[in-house]
């Protein structure tokens, strides 16, 4: 398949750096959402996304399974985010925001990236599907095609992801409620 991740990874490794653009276009938004959920700041997420993509490009030969490019990219993203967090000590900000999240009635729509944080905390398979579907602009059918999973499986996993997201968001609200009580 000439537009698969594997194809573009191979093209990059064969010395066509320009083809990395296709991978950037395909995943930049999903990556950004993931990082916003980790860093609670769009500005930092953009910086981290840029860094992650550049690192991914130069480390491409270490990618053993080109079909898993996206998960691998998120792995790099996670490390970059961790480094940035450490550097800027944003843990404090995170605690502060979480403690005050109860005051915002709809945590998932507030600009604190609570929803993205919950998405980023999902188990990998579910996380990838949600990111690609809602932030990466892909349809369930696209995801099924790209991952080789039957469409039914993608839908089921998405259902499961919804359930986990709801649990996570509700839990957060409850614990914040208790804290602020």
């Amino acid at each position, binding site marked *: 398949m000439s537009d698969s991740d594997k194809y573009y990874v191979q093209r990059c490794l064969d010395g066509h750096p320009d083809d990395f653009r296709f991978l950037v276009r395909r995943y930049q938004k999903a990556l*950004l*959402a993931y990082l916003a959920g980790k860093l609670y700041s769009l500005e930092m997420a953009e910086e981290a996304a840029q860094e992650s993509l550049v690192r991914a490009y130069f480390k491409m030969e270490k990618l053993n399974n080109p079909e898993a490019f996206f998960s691998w990219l998120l792995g790099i993203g996670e490390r970059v985010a961790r480094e940035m967090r450490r550097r800027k000590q944003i843990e404090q900000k995170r605690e502060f925001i979480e403690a005050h999240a109860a005051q915002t009635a709809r945590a998932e*729509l507030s600009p604190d990236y609570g929803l993205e944080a919950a998405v980023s905390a999902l188990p990998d398979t579910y996380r990838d599907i949600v990111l690609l579907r809602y932030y990466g602009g892909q349809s369930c059918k696209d995801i099924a095609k790209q991952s080789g999973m039957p469409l039914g499986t993608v839908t089921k996993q998405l259902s499961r992801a919804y359930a986990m997201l709801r649990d996570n968001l509700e839990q957060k609200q409850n614990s914040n409620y208790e804290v602020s009580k």
Partner: protein
Amino acid sequence: MNCAECKELLVGFLEGLVDEAEKKRISEHVKSCANCSAELEKLEKLHKSLISNGEALAESDLEAEVFNRILREQKEKLKTAGQAGKTINFWRIIMKSPIIKLAAAAVIIAAVIVGVTPFLGGTVTFADVIEPILNARTVVLDLVVGSEETGLVVHDIVVGSKIRRTIPNMGLAIIDLDNARALRLDPSEKSAVYVDIQGPIQQYMNSYLGMVRDIVADMENHPEWPVQELGQRWMNGQSAVGFLLSVPNIKLTIWADAETAAPIRIEMLMGQSQTIIKNIEFDVPVDESLVSMDIPDGYTLHEGELDYTDFDEQDFIIILQFWAEHVLGGNFPDSVSAKDILKMRPALRQKIDQLNISDEEKMQIGAAMGRGFIFFRQLEFSDTDWHYVGKGVELGDANTAVFLYRPEGSEYYRVMFGDLHIEEVAPENLPQ
């Protein structure tokens, strides 16, 4: 429909993935079941949040920034590699080699290897015309790089993935594409040297051979790529039919025998580089020892391998610098093409020999020039926008541009000035 069944289908329902019948059943159930209705409402809220957050967050565009960084870092890495690993590696080779003539030959070695394109001509749609190009195991042909009258003529014997390439007065090379090695033979000196063609250069060569297949495969996806029939023409005593194929960056004209459909002449214009392939014979018997990678009897092998695995603009600058400084008395040449560089070679060889520097340094100059030649050929063949504007410019003139090109994927031009410094310039600010 019961509640368990309904809940399982709700996300699919929101995603529009259930069929009409199921949709109806879900809607009916939800209407009559407060529990499922509440569940749907919650899921819908989450669904909407995800969609709106996705849209809100999706406005950033990282592509340009990411690419600028990649280009910058790539260049840095090349520079460091060139200063550290590459040079050390190279010096090790030099120390073993009692070679000085090789220095001057380095450009030629590079030319013999990449100076020409292996019959890209196989790209017509007409199966009967391209069939021999795709399937013949042996091909014998002449290649003219440049125009028919003044171009450089190269004779190729192709056997499978090996090529025996001869350039009159410049010697020959056996190129083994599968193993990414070449054996350069100099009959006048009876000397031989192995050349490592892994890395970018290998990809570059392979891409030419692979291009036949790629373009033909690609044509199916591009019905808009026109194949124009050029009609019949009398050519070298035989009746020929012509086809013109235009794909991005390449114009390919194939003339085939009107009776047998065997290609007899292929003209290719790729980027700014023209190649003519003629005197083509398919599947002729070839003595396999002609493409042997073993050293022929009576030849002396230079130890070590020449390294052309990496090349960049700095290598090309060395050619221009040396050309202007030592061959043209301080002026840049009127024009720069592969042909010009190769024609300058005897003078170059003489000048290198006369230089009061060590053999090692001569060797290094020669190798850098070989790499610079490859860099330049790559520009010539690609659709990179490049211009040589050095006519009348003196070496050392810091204000006048000599050469400029726009690296693939970059918004900026790299502009080289008469004093050899390089600036990155936006297209709108380019010197006239």
